[in-house]
Each structure stands twice: as C-alpha cells, then as structure tokens.
C-alpha cells in the first residue's frame, strides 16, 4: 500500500460546502521524514485540508492516502498513526503536566509504563522535570506549546500535523520549537506544518502555498524564490496570495 517513501499522497482532492469550494482539486505528496510547510492566507482552505488528512472530515471527491490508509475508508487507522497539535494547543489547563501526558498516552492506547518512561524522557529533554506536578495554567505559553508538541508525538506517530503551532510566541521560543521539530523529523517522523511566519517557511524542506482553495505553488523554498525571482519567502507569499 505504501507508495515508495511517500507518506501522504493526495489526488484530485475536492471539498465542497454547499456551493462553496474550500479545496479545489488538490494534488501533492509528502515524503517520509520530510518537514512539509503548508502555507496560505487565512481562509485559503488550509484547515479544511488538514481536517481531511487527519480523518476528521470526509472529502467530497478525490483521494488522500495518509500513512498508507485511505482517509475516506479507514479514518480510524489514519488517526492511530498521526499526531495533532492545533493553534490553540490541546492540553488541559486544570491538569498537571504529568496528568496531561498520562491522559493523551492513555487515549492512544499506550501502556502505563511506556507513558511513564516517555514522559520522563521528554521532560528531561525540555529541561522541565521540576514542573511535572505543576498545573498547566501556571506554565508560560511558550513552554506549554513545547509540551503540547511533545504530547502530540508521545505515541510515536508516523506523521504529526501542526496547525499554526507557534502563534503568539516570542522568537526565541519559536526557535527552540523548531529545534524540536527538526529533532523529531530526524527521528523519522514526518512533520506537516502550517504557519503564518515566512521565516518559518524557510525552515521547511518543501512548502506548498494555497490560495482560494487551490495549491498555487509547491517546491523547496529555494526553488520557489528562484521561480518568482524574489529574495525571500515573504515576497513569494505576497506574490501568490496577494
């Protein structure tokens, strides 16, 4: 079922809400272990596409194969193999760091012992061991987002979807966040990330840029800059999305 190192294959994907076409014939693929930037202005259809890829929503037509499974036919199998972190991050404020890890590990069917070991490992890596029993609401935003990312990859997913993971975070924390992303990508996890920050787009191995439901450009940041004869991704983005 797996198609030669490609972990996401999207073919002629269309999503309509009544008369409105949110995704118009999307075609793209993502390689295993790649950091793929999924860019586009607000309302361009990014969130709709992510929802389809993560098995939350069904495509109107076309196919999407994620982690070897058709999202239309086997959304449950897709869900098991992906991690997800949204712009509003997904941890519970009224639970401690440890409890959040335990909860998310639990719903992904991980064993208690495995959760414990992984939690210890992640907290050590983040240098947050002292905060394990602190309620999440007392922890600064940037740290929370790093925790949320760790939780999203706790169960070793093949792909992790990050929907604007660094909104409202200072540049230093963003930098650290991207170090985490690189680290997990080098471990073989595919990272599918949407962002509004064009400097972050430069960090991606390949990016696609959406506008009005269509993918207007796809390629490495260097290729795109050359194609549009500009110096930065910022300018590429403005040329396409206006």
């Amino acid at each position: 079922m797996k198609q030669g190192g490609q972990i996401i294959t999207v073919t002629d994907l269309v999503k309509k809400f009544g008369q409105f076409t949110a995704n118009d014939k999307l075609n793209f693929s993502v390689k295993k272990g790649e950091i793929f930037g999924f860019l586009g202005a607000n309302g361009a259809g990014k969130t709709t596409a992510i929802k389809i890829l993560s098995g939350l929503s069904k495509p109107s037509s076309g196919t999407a194969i994620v982690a070897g499974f058709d999202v239309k036919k086997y959304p449950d199998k897709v869900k098991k193999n992906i991690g997800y972190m949204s712009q509003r991050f997904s941890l519970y404020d009224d639970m401690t760091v440890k409890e959040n890890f335990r909860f998310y590990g639990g719903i992904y069917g991980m064993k208690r012992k495995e959760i414990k070991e992984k939690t210890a490992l992640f907290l050590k890596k983040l240098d947050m061991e002292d905060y394990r029993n602190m309620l999440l609401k007392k922890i600064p935003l940037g740290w929370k987002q790093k925790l949320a990312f760790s939780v999203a990859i706790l169960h070793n997913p093949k792909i992790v979807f990050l929907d604007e993971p660094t909104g409202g975070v200072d540049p230093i924390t963003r930098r650290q966040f991207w170090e985490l992303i690189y680290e997990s990508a080098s471990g073989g996890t595919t990272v599918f990330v949407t962002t509004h920050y064009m400097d972050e787009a430069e960090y991606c191995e390949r990016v696609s840029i959406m506008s009005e439901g269509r993918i207007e450009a796809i390629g490495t940041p260097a290729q795109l800059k050359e194609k549009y004869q500009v110096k930065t991704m910022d300018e590429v983005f403005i040329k396409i999305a206006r």
Partner: protein
Amino acid sequence: MYAFIKKEFFHIFRDYRSMLILFGMPVAQVLLFGFAITTDINDAKIAILDHSKDPVTRDITQKILSSKYFILEQNLQSNNQIEAAFKAGNIKEVIVFEQNFAEKLQREGKADIQLILDATEPNTASMLSAYSSGIINTYSLQQMKAANKVPLSIVTESKMLYNPELKSVYMFVPGVITILLMLVSTMMTSISITREKEMGTMEALLVSPLKPLQIIIGKVTPYVLLSFINLIVILTMASFIFGMPVRGSLGLLLVESVLFIVMSLALGILISTISKTQQQAMLLSMFALMLPTILLSGFIFPVENMPVALQWTSHVMPSKWFIIIIKNIMLKGVGIAYFWKETLIILLNTLFFIGMSVKKFKVRLE
C-alpha cells in the same frame, strides 16, 4: 477509556464552581424548600364569633384550637367586628357559628358554620379553609357515631389522600430531585463539552483514535455517577430530616432515576452540539430547561390550573412525567403497571435526544 473518565474527574474536582453546583446545590435546595419555602400552615391566628355559645360550639372550638394549625387571637361579639378584626391585621380566618347551633343540629340535623378567610394569600386561605372544614367534618362524624345515629344529610368529606397532613415536603422532594438531576446532568455535561470545544481540546480528542461514542461515554460517565450520588443524598436528607417515605420499591425508583439521568445527559449533549460557548450552553440549559421545569412541570403550580396552552406546553416537559413517576413510587407505593406510560414517554424522549445529537454531530463532521 479509563484514562478519559479519570481526566473528567480531575476537571470536576479541580473546579470549585462545579463542585459547588454539584454538591452544595442539593443540600441547599432541599433545606431551602424544606424550611423556608414551606407551604405548610402552623399557628395561623384566627378569631371566633360564636352567636350560640352552647356545648357543641364550644366542643368544636376546642377541637380546632387543639390542632397545631390554629391559635385563637380574639373572641368576637358581633358581625360588624369581623372586618375590623381582619383590618387590624394578623388574623387569617374568622369562624362564625350561627345562633342556636346545637339546637338546630338536634332538630334539623344540620347547622351552619361560616368560614371567612383573608384571601390576600390565596394558597394560605384555601389551605386554612380545608383544614378547618376537615376538623369540623371529623367532629360531626364522630358525634354521629357516638350518638349511633344514621346521618341525616350527606356530609361532604374531603380526604387528603397520600399526604393527609398536606405536608409540602411530599410535594417538593420529587420536584427537587427532578430539578437537580436535570441541572447536574444537563447543564454540567453541556458546559463541560462546550468547554472542550472552546479550549480546542475537542479537536485533539476527535483526531485521536477514540470513537465519538467513546468520547461521549467518557464525558458523561462521571456525571451519571455524581447525579446518582446526588439522588441518594437528597433521598437520605428527605427521609431523615423531613420524614419523607418511600412507599414503593426503592430499586424501581433508582432505575427510573437512572433512565431520567440518561435522558438529561442526552439533552445536555444535544445542547452542547448547538452551542458554541460555555455561556451559551449555560443560558440554554438555564432558561430553556430550568425555568420551565420549575414553573410548568407541576412542581409548584398545579398543571390543572394553568391555561390550556400552558398545559399543553407542560405535557412536552419530560420533567413533568418524571415527577409523576417519583410521586407514584414514593407516596402511592405503586408498581410499574401504573406508570409505564410515563416511563415510555421518558424513554422515547431519551432516544429522540440521542438521535438528534448524533445527527447534529455527523453534520458537523461533514
């Protein structure tokens, strides 16, 4: 699944507001309704105008005053004192015996007592009138038996079945149970689900391998448990503090309550699927549910006295049927044969709410 339920308990126990609603509410409500909003009558002040002053009227007066409901404030001498007595305040009732009372009773087997009531408080007035005529009727019956006489005129007898002392505790406990189960189940679930939506954690749950049904069961299980505990607390308080009986089967009562809890939970889920924020969910459950439950379910105001349009509305309230069921079990002590229809209505309601929620849920995923 286990992890999910545990997490839900964390939410509840760490939020002092939900704790307060969950456990403070039942205690406060039962005590409030039991002591403050009591509709029982104790020590109502009355005046007596006795035109006859014979042994029989004295006997009746004695009987009335020895009940704990009345206190003699004043003896009146003539009819024109009556109004003044009422106007002077604090007298709720005047009992007037006609002239030659005993003699008339002997000769014609019939004599008149007039009850004049201060109806500025209509509930109190009608209750006082019922109490006094009850006492008088009992007296005349006893007299006839004693004299071994066949009654000459038919005595209209109003007997208060199931609640002979007209205790309002008997009336409000079923109501409070209904309201609290509904409040806890409906409001708390709808709020807790919309909270996940607001915080964005709902998305995380939906992309996880958990099935929507598992998410829902995980969310509602703690509330089923807590509502059940609440039910036990209310029943225990009602029984020990106010002496409320459970004449029917306790098991049946619990089963019916669980059915009602499940229905309320389904309703809570439905509310959460149509509201976007916690406030919206709270307002919806408050105004769309609590007020009609209190006002229209027959809990405080009898349904029979409402305008026809409101009576029809009250038939739509599931809480009305549940109150009937509890009253049947607790006070009449009858079995399922007497209220299977009401049970069926609640069951259908449950299925309807679940069906609607599932439909709404699916639409959202499209």
